[in-house]
């Protein structure tokens, strides 16, 4: 009896998740901007995955461009031309998409984890703990974020992983605020009160009632952190704080700028990474806003 009870519960939970997922999928399909964002994103995903098919990793090395013309315009051999030392721009672009996406996603995970923990704790705990967490949150909200990231990047090193952690560490404050607000409204709900009256402790209330309520918000919010993180990475790389060995899109732009390709109008060098950055930011933003609309009933019908 007990067995059958728990299996039916599990089955029910899964059925609910399936239903919820198909609802989200249905609504997303009918949300034009969101769906465009999703398509665009899938395109970038495929692009990044297909890197080994498009160009060999070795073509990223400085030595690989030795026999090629420098800053050559696009041709059948080099679809997007070459850079100032004769390397294939397309190879750098496609391998760079991996770096940019990796940094964007990892930074987001870091930011969302910190933001959610701080937001949950600040919303759920009352009194001093909440006040201290809010003060820290305020600090990260107002501190000029680029200088802080630069300082941290210089101190901690420049590998893509450290860069991602640095970016994540400096961009969680907004989501913490958002999550805290949602936690506050959720913990006022009568069903939370009912759980307490049943004898539930904080752990039960958070896991069963509060977290499931904020999860959609966290997902939507995360989708909006990714583009900011990618932009930040590009900015840092463009300013020369990126990793020399892994060519991200920001790094490409940095190269284009320092080689003077902009003055001689070598558009194939600076335009593709620029467009890619705009495209990926747009894709994530469109998708994130759509998820926000779907998950947050208050935004419906606006």
């Amino acid at each position: 009896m007990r067995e059958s009870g728990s299996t039916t519960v599990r089955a029910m939970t899964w059925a609910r998740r399936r239903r919820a997922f198909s609802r989200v999928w249905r609504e997303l399909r009918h949300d034009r901007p969101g769906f465009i964002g999703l398509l665009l994103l899938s395109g970038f995903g495929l692009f990044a995955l297909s890197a080994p098919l498009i160009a060999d990793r070795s073509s990223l090395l400085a030595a690989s461009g030795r026999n090629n013309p420098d800053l050559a315009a696009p041709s059948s051999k080099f679809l997007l031309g070459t850079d100032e030392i004769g390397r294939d721009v397309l190879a750098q672009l496609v391998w760079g998409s991996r770096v940019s996406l990796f940094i964007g996603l990892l930074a987001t995970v870091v930011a969302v984890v910190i933001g959610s923990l701080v937001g949950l704790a600040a919303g759920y705990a009352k009194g001093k703990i909440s006040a201290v967490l809010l003060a820290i949150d305020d600090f990260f909200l107002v501190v000029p974020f680029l200088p802080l990231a630069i300082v941290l990047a210089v101190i901690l090193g420049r590998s893509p992983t450290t860069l991602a952690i640095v970016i994540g560490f400096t961009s969680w404050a907004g989501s913490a605020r958002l999550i805290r607000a949602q936690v506050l409204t959720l913990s006022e709900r009568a069903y939370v009160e009912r759980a307490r009256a049943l004898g539930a402790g904080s752990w039960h209330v958070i896991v069963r009632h509060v977290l499931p309520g904020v999860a959609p918000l966290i997902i939507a919010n995360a989708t909006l952190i990714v583009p900011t993180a990618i932009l930040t990475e590009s900015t840092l790389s463009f300013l020369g704080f990126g990793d020399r060995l892994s060519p991200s899109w920001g790094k490409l732009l940095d190269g284009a700028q320092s080689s003077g390709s902009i003055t001689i109008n070598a558009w194939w060098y600076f335009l593709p990474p620029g467009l890619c950055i705009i495209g990926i930011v747009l894709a994530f933003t469109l998708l994130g806003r759509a998820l926000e609309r779907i998950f947050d009933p208050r935004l419906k019908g606006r």
Partner: protein
Amino acid sequence: MARDPLLVCDDVHVAYPPRRRGGKPARAVDGIDLEISKGEIVALVGESGCGKTTFARAILGLQEVSAGSIVFDGKSFPATADDRKSFHRRAQIVFQDPTASLNPRHSVYEIVAEGLRIHGLSDNEHEVVTRALERCGLHPADRYLSKYPHELSGGQRQRVVIAGAMVLEPKLLVADEPVSSLDASVRGEILGLLQTLAREQEMAVLVVTHDLGLAWNIADRIAVMYLGRIVEIGATEELLARPKHPYTQALLSVVLEHLGMVQQILVGEMPDPTAIPSGCRFHQRCPLLQSGEAKKLGIDSRCTAEDPVLRSDNDGSSVACHATESPTRVAC
């Protein structure tokens, strides 16, 4: 009366700290004595803002008590977390709005089983849940187990809430306006259910309500609350047939207007709990003072200066009014 007191509240106070610096605290519950016996249904009647819901929450430990004592089942109010948890097993609450008190993401099964899981009572979970649902009038239970709150009607939701409380087999059920958000025709069924459960389980029920009619329907005793305090308490038939406190009289006259009773509509509204009047807390609106009857009885100065205590009468009822102490006055 209190043959076997399950819950004994002695001079319970709940004060909310002032909103602004220099403000006065809100004395939402201002000294309540109340006993409830096993299997008894007590209605706590009062207008909104009289502190009845705060008191109900205080009984269940959902609201901190600022003074006084609550003894439940022979034990003083739980101090440690473990005590508190076992206390919650034996005292349950049903809220006014069943829609808000059910998590929209949880199925009926999960909702009803929640209490069992919190207390680690996982044996025969499925069976216990099914039985609780059927006992609360949702049969066959199988048809409801996998439903979600939004798929149920208001009455069914309230039944689910009650079933969720009943799985823990509580000794006390506090029902805070259990039917006021439900349709009139469904109301009777839910009240009937509470009454049956109280009888069959020997469960004490405290119904918090604004509705004297509801009290007439199911309560054994009625306690009338005004501005943080019980002003009159007694057996239902007795209290409603011969109300002694002028506030109870006025309340009753308003609902019984159609029976030819002269309406005593009180002027003004109940004061704020931050500014409880001196003397009798009801004196500013009291018809006895306004009609000059208090003066005739020679108690008008006491009414404005002296806070009347809840005095037991020989018929088992208690009233907090200076006029009832005076032998010359005949109860109307």
